[in-house]
């Protein structure tokens, strides 16, 4: 069957030529040399949209609905991307984000138990970095030190940013040490060794208060 056409050497197609009505005199349409254009020319232009009061009202309803949905707590923002540089305005931004999220508390009876969110995350960032911390013990520490830290902040009126919970812990301990004016740096070093924070120390970027330790950092980070 396959050899029938090839054997004769003539131009024969698998379907009958007359049935598809390509008469003798005509040739096939020219073969295509390049991909078809992206938007071919339209011979028939489409009809215009139906205007009128109803259509306009529907349009207004639709746009209002979309706008309203954006403000409702159902609109979930993705977690904020990690900042490249800590900025002063971050403390103002973080408050805005979490405002709408906690507004809505669903009726938990209608939802499976596993969907219950135990504790709303205070800050989009800390959720991300918190999940990065492998040992669970540190999380417990975070829960306790949160309150103390808030109090300290109110007292000292100093540093506002919370790049990571590790640093929160260290900051808090550091402030205590400053007030006591004890061997702050020695204790700090001890902590550092205790909690295996060798590598994460390099995240801590505050050169003002730990000018001394920055050299120590570089020594350790050489590994």
């Amino acid at each position, binding site marked *: 069957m396959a050899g029938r056409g090839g054997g004769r050497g003539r131009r024969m197609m*698998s*379907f*009958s030529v*007359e*049935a*598809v*009505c390509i008469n003798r005199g005509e040739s096939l349409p020219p073969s295509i040399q390049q991909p078809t254009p992206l938007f071919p020319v339209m*011979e*028939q232009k*489409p*009809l215009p*949209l*139906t205007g009128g009061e*109803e*259509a306009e*009202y*529907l*349009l207004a*309803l*639709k*746009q209002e*609905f*979309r706008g*309203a*949905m954006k403000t*409702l707590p*159902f*609109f*979930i*923002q*993705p*977690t904020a991307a990690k900042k490249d540089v800590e900025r002063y305005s971050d403390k103002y931004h973080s408050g805005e984000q979490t405002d709408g*999220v906690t507004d809505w508390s*669903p*009726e938990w*009876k*209608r*939802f*499976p*138990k*596993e*969907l*219950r*969110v135990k504790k709303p*995350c205070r800050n989009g960032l800390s*959720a*991300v970095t918190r*999940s990065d911390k492998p040992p669970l013990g540190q999380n417990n520490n975070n829960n306790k030190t949160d309150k103390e830290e808030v109090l300290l902040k109110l007292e000292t009126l100093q540093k506002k940013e919370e790049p990571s919970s590790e640093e929160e812990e260290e900051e808090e301990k550091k402030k205590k040490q400053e007030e006591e004016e004890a061997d702050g740096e020695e204790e700090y070093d001890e902590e550092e060794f205790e909690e295996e924070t060798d590598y994460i120390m390099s995240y801590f970027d505050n050169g003002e208060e730990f000018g001394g330790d920055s050299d120590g950092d570089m020594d350790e980070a050489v590994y």
Partner: protein
Amino acid sequence: MTAQEVRLCGLLLREHFGEVVEKVGTHLLRGGAQNLRIIIHETGVPLDLVKKSLCVLVQHGACVFSSGRKGAGSPTEYRTSCDRILRILRYPRYIYTTKTLYGDTGELIIEELLQRGHMTMSSTVKTVADRLTQNMEEGLCMDYGEVSNAFSKLVETHFLQRSTPATPGTPAAPVSTAPPSPESFPDCYKVPHMTLVGRGKRQLCSEDGEDQRNAKRAKMDSQAHGDEGICWQVNFERFHLHFRDQAIISAVANKLDQTSSEIVRTMLRMSEVTTSPTATCTKPLSANEIFRSLPPSYNIARPIVDQYLTLLVDDPMEFVGKAGESGGGMYVVNLHRALANLARATLESVVQERFGSRSARIFRLLLRKRHLEQKQVEDFAMIPAKEAKDMLYTLLAQNLVQLQEIPKTPDFAPSRTFYLYTVNQLPTARMLLQNCYKTVANLIERRLFESRENKRLLEKSQRIEAILASLQASGAEPEQLTEVEEMITATEKQQLEALRLHINKLDSAENQVDESIFLLESYINSTASTS
């Protein structure tokens, strides 16, 4: 779930609930039933956000959960379906319909319920009363009683229904593939007895009288209103029946005249409660009943009504059929046939607008005559052979027309085979429906693209509007206002105008495509239920 449907659902979720919910939702759509751990693992979204997204999806009815397939004790599985999410396209139409039927109060009730998924009656009434009071003049307040009345009316006519009561985690629940529909519960349309007395409150009240009322209301808010746990949701199916009836009535009005459409409207109104949603035709109504139920503004004599009914029955569209002779003639409205005819008209108009009226003539011919050879097509359509051939091949390439081979000999030799052209209405309707979904997805993408391109300009105009508003509120001079307005240059104003025009056009186009989607979907669903 076809690829086009999933893409469109993803875009709708992104616009209304954000990108996180979009990611989780599309993953569920593509993957079928999954439990929480699999979702977290495969989407890579953090646990908290996945939980929140699932809560949002369940709240809006887009996702259902059930105990796992392996029996009690296995983790709950979540399942999404495209249908519910695609309804989002039709929300403006639902709200507008309620406005025409029940006024502003009804409109706001439906809007609140659509925005929040499901809510208890008391919270809905309070929110709507507050919103209405905002828009009313100073000193007037919306009474809760009025809003409750509107709510009860909506429930009576079945536009609102109770959500399925909560039964999560009961080990005795049977593991069935289909979750129970709200209609399977007997109290579906019963308004609960609740104690809710009061008036809507305004956001900014400075009068003493209002303050006293505010104080009273604060106490009342903490009370239980007697309807805790009973959540209400919008009954989309009822709205669809209403839209279907409207489509039939307007089709009759276009084809025949206003009086015939009034007669059909009366017939449909009388059979609203007696006809089930999937019925092929309404219950038979006698001509006497129809005559008595016509609206009193139509002073038509009885024989004229009979003539109109005969005309309707004889019409080739077959909207109305005769079911018997008792009572002066028993008449039914053929719902499924009407839907099929409306879908057919949609297909024909699509072909006409895309390929021209002569191709449409060929298409209609093939719809009527079923199978035709090439020669017969040319003869019946009265189109010269060469052009007819071209048009047929274009339609064939677009898959609107199919080729059927009928062999004379078992070896299908081309010279001894009949090649017949044919059109199958149902598969063509399905294909066009997918095209519609693709169209809407493209429109949304284009609109998002336009907004992204001009983001800077839009933000600038928003900032300037905010500045203007604050200046006006604090009573600034006209010079300051003009100075601020001039911060936008003339070319930027033009660009903004053009942008607004484009976005409005794209939005309007989405609404219009949704009307075609509704017709085609109704037709396809009606054939599915009968077959």
